[in-house]
């Protein structure tokens, strides 16, 4: 599938700039289009209006492609020479739909900002599936910016999603989202550079690592983890989901001197993978599976003693998506137990699919004991969800984070 290789390797050639609509929406969409968020090229059925797409009967014959799929880096299985994805290849072979898979999402806030102007103006974002973390997915669903996922087209997904992921207050009946993977936020480090094993969040602030430490941009991961550290030190009382603005202020005040003296070199999204590769980063807040699947042999992930952050990234179909039926087919496809097991075994995250663990255990018992895929009870007991803030609070917290990030 050299065809697919090229699609994986190259960015889309065209970008959509919407200048219709009200002047403000026009400017907003234009800004977003300028902002480096390249939208996929609309090579599919561009004449199909969103409402028609939404009501089309998803029979196998009616499924139109290509499927424009925006996901995070290191989040899809790759073959031996890392040129193609077996899962995507199989999907293409099964349904005859091209998949335009782009590793476009480095951080929730940044990606949200690239699609919000179009969605807010009632326009197609250009994507058929996007993957957002709980708090951001909830915000998009509450805003009504998603298509309802047809239950008749996704029977496997409805049957196989793990019970603890059902019944969320923002989408109790899985009408708008299906989890892609769950994972943890903890501390990543290069054991050769640090010269020792790290066990806590506080280890990241060791003076020996000055200038070689990075945190995650935005507040949900960074403020949660530092909050857990301050909680362990007795400086704040609340777990991340219950943190108050005063707690956030305390986290900010703790971090500020480390930013000022250059101890923390950057606030990153998924690009910490490159910085670990070059040795510019020795320790960082990272997401659990990335270093195992895409890092070097000396890169380690640790669930910190103070606790770690558990989250789920969710597949959503943005409002007005042009290839909704294809998106539903993909959602159903990755909930097949065998497909889910193959995916989880490569990317080292926690699969949302019932039975994927047993499937992995059948072929690879060692992997089935991996704590990244199947966190043991003592680690799971110290996993905390992120805060889910209302819009006004979100702006105030984001401002605190922006002050640390220097912009």
């Amino acid at each position, binding site marked *: 599938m050299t065809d697919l290789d090229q699609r994986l390797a190259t960015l889309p050639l065209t970008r959509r700039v919407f200048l219709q609509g009200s*002047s*403000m929406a026009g*400017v*907003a969409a234009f*800004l*977003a289009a300028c*902002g*480096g968020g390249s939208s996929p090229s609309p090579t599919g059925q561009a004449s199909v209006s969103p409402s028609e797409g939404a009501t089309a009967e998803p029979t196998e014959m009616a499924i139109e492609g290509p499927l424009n799929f925006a996901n995070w880096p290191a989040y899809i299985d790759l073959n031996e020479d890392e040129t193609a994805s077996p899962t995507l290849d199989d999907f293409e072979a099964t349904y005859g739909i091209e998949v335009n898979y782009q590793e476009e999402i480095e951080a929730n*806030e*940044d990606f949200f*900002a*690239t699609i*919000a*102007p179009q969605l*807010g103006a009632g326009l197609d974002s250009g994507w058929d599936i996007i993957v957002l973390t709980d708090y951001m997915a909830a915000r998009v669903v509450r*805003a009504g910016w998603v298509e309802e996922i047809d239950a008749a087209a996704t029977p496997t997904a409805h049957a196989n999603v793990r019970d603890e992921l059902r019944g969320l207050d923002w989408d109790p009946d899985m009408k708008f989202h299906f989890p892609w993977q769950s994972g943890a936020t903890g501390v990543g480090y290069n054991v050769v550079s640090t010269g020792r094993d790290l066990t806590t969040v506080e280890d990241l602030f060791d003076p*020996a*690592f*000055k*200038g*070689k430490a990075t945190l995650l941009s935005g507040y949900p991961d960074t403020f949660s983890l530092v909050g857990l550290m301050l909680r362990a030190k007795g400086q704040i009382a609340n777990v991340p989901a219950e943190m108050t603005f005063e707690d956030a202020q305390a986290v900010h005040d703790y971090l500020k001197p480390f*930013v*000022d*003296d*250059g101890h*923390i*070199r*950057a*606030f990153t999204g998924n690009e910490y993978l490159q910085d670990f590769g*070059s*040795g*510019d980063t*020795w320790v960082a807040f990272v997401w659990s599976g990335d270093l195992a699947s895409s890092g070097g042999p000396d890169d380690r992930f640790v669930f910190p003693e103070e606790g770690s952050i558990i989250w789920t990234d969710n597949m959503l179909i943005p409002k007005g998506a042009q290839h909704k039926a294809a998106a539903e087919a993909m959602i159903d496809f990755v909930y097949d137990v065998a497909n889910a097991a193959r995916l989880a075994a490569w990317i080292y995250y926690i699969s949302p699919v019932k039975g994927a663990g047993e499937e992995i255990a059948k072929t690879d018992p060692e992997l089935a004991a991996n704590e990244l895929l199947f966190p043991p009870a003592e680690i799971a007991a110290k996993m905390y969800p992120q805060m889910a803030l209302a*819009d*006004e609070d979100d*702006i105030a917290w*984001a401002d605190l984070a*922006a002050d*640390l*990030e*220097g*912009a």
Partner: protein
Amino acid sequence: MSLLRSRRAIPYLLMAPGLLWLLLFFVIPNVQMLVFSLSEGTLRTGFTTPPDVWDIDNYTGSISRFSDNFSNSIVYGGLATILCFLIGYPLAYAIAFKGGRWKNLLLFLVIAPFFTSFLIRTISWKIILGNDGPALAVARDFLHLVPANFSIIGTPLAVVGGLTYQFLPFMVLPLYVSIEKVDRRLIEAAQDLYAGPWRRGGLVAGAIFGAFALVALQVGLGYGAFVGEDAAPAAVVAAGLIGAVGGGLVGAFLISQSFIRVTFPLSLPGVFAASILTFIPAIGDYVNPQLLGSPKTQMVGNVIQGRFLDQNDYPIAAALAFLLMAGILIAIFLYARLLGTEELTGGTA
């Protein structure tokens, strides 16, 4: 009669496409931005626009809140311009006067980096200055000058270096054009009139300029948090002395009176154009601080980018953009006054 009238219309017809273009893509977007800059709210919460609200606080609040970013922009943009000038003027002079048959090739080499994307060039600097790169391989692994956790990435040095590299061609090309235009017969005439080496004047002027440039560089780069150390008074004095000695030597031995009295004054329009062409993009840049800097080295461009594209906070972003624009206009006005506009625009033509 009608022929005469149509002739009068010709200049307007010739200008019409340009004016229309400016109206559509400069005036109208700027009016829109001005409206944004006085509004309240974000994309998510919705905007309240004038005339319902006139939020001047977007401007006043931004200046105080983002004063660090403004000073970063001015200092880094200014330093990059000075460095570009110090590197670019001798280069342009050499190409124009000594280039000979290599002139076209040399000019091509100056522009050659532009054939690669701006982003790729900055990312290659990230690799060159990075942990595995040649710069640290020499300074850290071979000479053992710096500790193991020293990094160049994240320092003002990296940002200013990146800016200097990116905008050097903007400096060299206008300088080349104006130096190339200098009438050689005037230089010969000066030499006939006993214009020799600059010696004493060159020593003094070179020492002053050299000291100023190196102190500016030292203070500018040490300014803010440098990983490891801050600018110390002793270092500033040392930089001043080194700059004075170096500048004095260059002034006394390399610069002739015919250069200082003929070539340089005649190339001033090029200096003016080149420094503006370098300073304006450098001060508004956000790619270099983003990729090569740290949270302490973010410039105004980063705030504008972040507010527009990450936080969808258009009012603050628009206000900052206008403040930056106003700042640049004031700076250019003062600069033009300093160099004397009449001579720059009309005088030499």
